[in-house]
């Protein structure tokens, strides 16, 4: 089928299509097809003018290029064919004129193509503008072709790039359709959109609808869609629907936010308890005021508007000065804050806190006032109450010690603290409301009267008085009272009297004064010098007696180092002493050293120094100096004579030793001779004489030994060693047996406890034991058939007991006390020297032991000696 336009031209040229040669027909068919094809493309292009998409432009460009190339090819072919026809096909000469027509046609086509290209360029430019503007405005466009089918969903839909983006797609990434569109519409809005579209299709009217989109990622968007339906005017047939879609999410959201804020502000403004208001000060009119004024002032906004002075009228007369005072700073543009009282409409007085912000014009004229007023009565009341109670409390406490009383102008007690009972014995209830003088000592009434007068005359001033009070039990106490007149003070309205029992204190003070004056006179009159030094040993106090002792005046000594008035020779000693003092706080240290008087003479000084730096009462180093020159001289002399004595003693010791030896040696020789002579004779008379000689010599020897022992015990120091009692007793017994061969019929029993352990002076124990044992043997009872001496040593608490028991002649009870005396002998018959038991007693005492005697005449004696483990 040939193109209509071409057909018309052919018919014009050839008269009838049947007359056209077969070859030409073929050619015409090619031209026709190409034309149709082109026409079709043109239509598409034209439609796309209204569409907006990059792809379209690309597509169009591509199409255009293809079309151009194709057309060019067609034209070239056509030209070629025509020239062939012209040159070779003479048979078709007749048709030459028609061919020229055909050539014209081709030129026409060429012209047409050119025009179209220009139009295309323009369109492309328009399109790119559109694309940019769409993107910027977040507006997409779409077109729905309604010509294809009656089913709206099946009709081809076109979206612009921005439309893709709004619906959450990459431009051109999906095939668009009506279903795709609805899949992105918020489910709740689908009905709305569908009905709107349906109505528009029905009426052909434009529609404008806002609806939401719900994207798969959950994003919600709000879009505005405006669309129009195009109809064929003649037929009324629906052609297409073209629309725009605009993302208005942000706009809607911010609008919604704004609305919400407005709403909130409105609520706040209406419900807040503070009153906000604005006043135009040039016209003095109330511009606006919040409703809270009804609560705060009791008046409505209307009433405030009608009476511009109302806000000031309600202020209390005495508080108007507060507002007046803020006039000037406010006019200077400063924000004002003040508090004052108003009369509420209901008659109550309310505290108002107000803040005003003035607005000035550049000339400094006050234009406007914006203010806030709040009811702060509660806070104010609380503050005042607190202030008042605090004031009251403070008034009471500041001057109080123990009992507190408040009396009115007539001296009637209106208040009394509980402590009154403790001091006076009266409960507060007993004294409140009754004026009475019975609490005051008679003698002190005039004093107190004067005191009260003074108090009344000087409000607010405390006055102290000391007077005597009488307790409920009648006893008198001394009181220190402080009274203050607070009659003028509305918080108290009375005279506050407080007093305390100072009886004890007065007594203590009196005692203290006495003892202090005693102490002072003691110091001042003492011949001792007392100094107090600080931690650097600088003297901060010195008693006047320094003058008597050294000739220095106290002023000359104060501030000096305490050692400066001592002999320089003694500095080393004193320094060491001071180190010791400092190192031993609280412990007195004593030192004797030489010191110099002002006149240079030396005196000996005994110094006792105590570091009392740690003692807060003293905080110093206290020294006591005493002139002991005389004493020192005596002591020196004593020491010297002691030395001499010691020397003499030693000499005496040596003397006694040698004398005893010298005395004993001839005695011993004598005894040796006698004993030998005894063995040389059998003459009984001779033997008796020799025995008498021997006895006499022995007695003399015993005497020497006793004196030796006595002197030794008195002079020789104790020595301590472990005592082997078994060996010691054996030695003693052997020695005695050797000496008393004549009394060998006396049985000696020895009992030594293995555990009897002792550290003591062996020589002395031996003296004790040998004296006791020899006595026991010497004074054995010849009447008894079995005379014995029993020696026992055993452990006894803290040491040992040493017993020497015999069944000898015994000692009568009346002589027990005397037997330990020196040179005492029980009877003339006594053979001893009378010194033995004295030595025993002395020696036992030296060993810190004790001795006891149990004895009865003719029965025997028992000496019990207790010796302690430790003799030191």
């Amino acid at each position: 089928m040939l193109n209509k336009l071409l057909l018309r031209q052919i018919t014009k040229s050839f008269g009838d299509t049947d007359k056209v040669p077969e070859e030409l027909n073929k050619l015409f068919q090619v031209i026709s097809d190409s034309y149709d094809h082109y026409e079709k493309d043109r239509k598409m292009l034209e439609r796309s003018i209204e569409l907006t998409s990059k792809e379209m432009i690309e597509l169009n460009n591509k199409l255009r290029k293809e079309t151009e190339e194709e057309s060019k090819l067609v034209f070239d072919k056509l030209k070629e064919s025509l020239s062939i026809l012209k040159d070779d096909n003479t048979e078709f000469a007749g048709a030459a004129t028609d061919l020229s027509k055909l050539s014209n046609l081709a030129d026409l086509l060429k012209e047409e193509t050119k025009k179209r290209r220009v139009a295309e360029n323009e369109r492309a430019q328009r399109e790119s503008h559109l694309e940019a503007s769409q993107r910027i405005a977040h507006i997409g466009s779409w077109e729905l072709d309604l010509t294809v089918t009656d089913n709206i969903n099946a009709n081809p839909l076109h979206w612009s790039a921005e439309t893709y983006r709004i619906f959450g797609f990459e431009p051109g990434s999906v095939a668009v359709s009506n279903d795709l569109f609805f899949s992105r519409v918020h489910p709740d809005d689908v009905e709305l959109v569908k009905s709107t579209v349906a109505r528009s299709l029905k009426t052909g009217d434009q529609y404008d609808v806002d609806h939401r989109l719900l994207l798969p990622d959950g994003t919600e968007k709000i879009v505005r869609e405006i669309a129009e339906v195009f109809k064929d005017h003649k037929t009324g047939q629906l052609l297409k629907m073209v629309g725009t879609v605009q993302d208005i999410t942000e706009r809607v959201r911010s609008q919604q936010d704004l609305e919400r804020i407005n709403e909130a502000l409105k609520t706040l403004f209406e419900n807040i308890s503070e009153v906000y208001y604005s006043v135009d000060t040039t016209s003095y009119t109330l511009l606006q005021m919040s409703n809270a004024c009804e609560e705060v002032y009791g008046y409505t906004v209307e009433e405030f508007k009608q009476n511009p002075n109302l806000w000031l009228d309600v202020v209390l007369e005495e508080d108007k000065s507060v507002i007046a005072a803020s006039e000037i700073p406010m006019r200077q543009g400063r924000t004002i804050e003040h508090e004052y009282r108003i009369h509420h409409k209901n008659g109550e007085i309310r505290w108002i806190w107000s803040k005003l912000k003035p607005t000035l014009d550049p000339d400094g004229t006050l234009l406007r006032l914006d203010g806030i007023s709040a009811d702060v009565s509660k806070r104010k009341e609380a503050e005042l109450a607190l202030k008042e109670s605090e004031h009251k409390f403070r008034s009471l406490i500041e001057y109080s010690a123990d009992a507190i009383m408040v009396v009115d102008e007539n001296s009637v007690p209106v208040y009394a603290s509980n402590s009154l009972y403790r001091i006076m014995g009266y409960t507060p209830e007993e004294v409140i409301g009754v004026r009475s003088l019975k609490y005051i000592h008679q003698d002190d009434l005039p004093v107190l009267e004067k005191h009260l007068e003074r108090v009344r005359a000087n409000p607010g001033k405390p006055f102290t008085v000391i007077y005597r009070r009488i307790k409920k039990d009648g006893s008198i106490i001394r009181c220190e009272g402080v009274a203050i007149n607070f009659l003028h003070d509305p918080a108290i309205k009375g005279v506050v009297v407080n007093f305390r029992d100072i009886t004890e204190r007065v007594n203590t003070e009196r005692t203290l004064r006495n003892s202090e004056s005693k102490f002072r006179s003691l110091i001042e009159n003492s011949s001792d010098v007392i100094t107090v030094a600080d931690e650097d040993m600088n003297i901060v106090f010195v008693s006047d007696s320094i003058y008597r002792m050294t000739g220095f005046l106290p002023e000359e000594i104060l501030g000096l180092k305490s050692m400066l008035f001592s002999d320089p020779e003694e500095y080393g000693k004193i320094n060491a002493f001071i180190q010791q003092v400092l190192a031993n706080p609280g412990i007195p240290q004593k030192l004797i050293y030489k010191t110099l008087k002002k006149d240079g003479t030396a005196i000996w000084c005994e110094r006792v120094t105590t570091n009392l730096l740690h003692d807060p009462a003293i905080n110093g180093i206290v020294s006591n100096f005493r002139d002991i020159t005389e004493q020192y001289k005596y002591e020196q002399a004593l020491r010297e004579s002691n030395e001499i004595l010691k020397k003499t003693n030693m000499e005496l010791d040596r003397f006694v030793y040698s004398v005893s030896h010298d005395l004993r040696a001839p005695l011993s020789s004598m005894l040796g001779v006698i004993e030998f002579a005894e063995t040389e004779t059998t003459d009984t008379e001779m033997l008796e004489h020799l025995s008498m000689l021997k006895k006499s010599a022995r007695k003399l020897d015993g005497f020497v030994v006793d004196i030796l022992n006595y002197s030794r015990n008195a002079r020789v120091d104790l020595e301590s060693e472990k005592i082997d009692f078994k060996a010691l007793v054996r030695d003693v017994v052997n020695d005695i047996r050797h000496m008393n061969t004549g009394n060998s019929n006396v049985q000696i029993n020895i009992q030594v406890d293995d555990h009897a352990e002792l550290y003591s002076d062996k020589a002395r124990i031996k003296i004790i034991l040998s004296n006791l044992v020899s006595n026991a043997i010497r004074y054995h009872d010849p009447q008894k058939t079995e005379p014995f001496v029993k020696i026992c040593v055993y452990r006894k608490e803290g040491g040992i007991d040493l017993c020497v028991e015999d069944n000898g002649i015994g000692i009568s009870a009346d002589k027990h006390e005397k037997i330990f005396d020196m040179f005492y002998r029980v009877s003339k018959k006594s053979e001893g020297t009378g010194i033995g038991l004295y030595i025993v007693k002395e020696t036992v005492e030296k060993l810190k032991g004790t001795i006891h005697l149990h004895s009865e005449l003719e029965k025997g004696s028992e000496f019990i000696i207790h010796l302690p483990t430790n003799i030191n």
Partner: protein
Amino acid sequence: MTDANKTHAYKRIMVIDDNQIDRYIAEKTIKKYHFSEEVVPLESAVDALEQLSALSDKMEELPEIILLDINMPEMSGFEFLEKYAELPDTVTKKCIIVMLTTSLNEDDRMVAEKNPYIHQFLNKPLNEETLKKIRLVK
């Protein structure tokens, strides 16, 4: 008791004592009780040292027992002991020294007991009892 034929306990005994009576008693008593065949009485400790020193290589002539007094002029018993210690072993090993004194001084006794050459400390006078004690040492 006095039997001339009785055997003697010791062969030779030396008595060092400044007291002539004591030396006499010692000699008499020792002889009487046949305590020793020979008694060498010496007045001075110095003489005693000289004799002992001279006899140091004559074992047979050295005394078996020396009775020593303490308090003597010129040289006391303790001073003698100091010198005695310096004598050859032959002397000190053979001789037994017994102190025989009137001293009751415990210090003397203690010093004596500590001295390694003193075998006994006995008090005068020398009699039969004393000799019995010395004999116990043998």
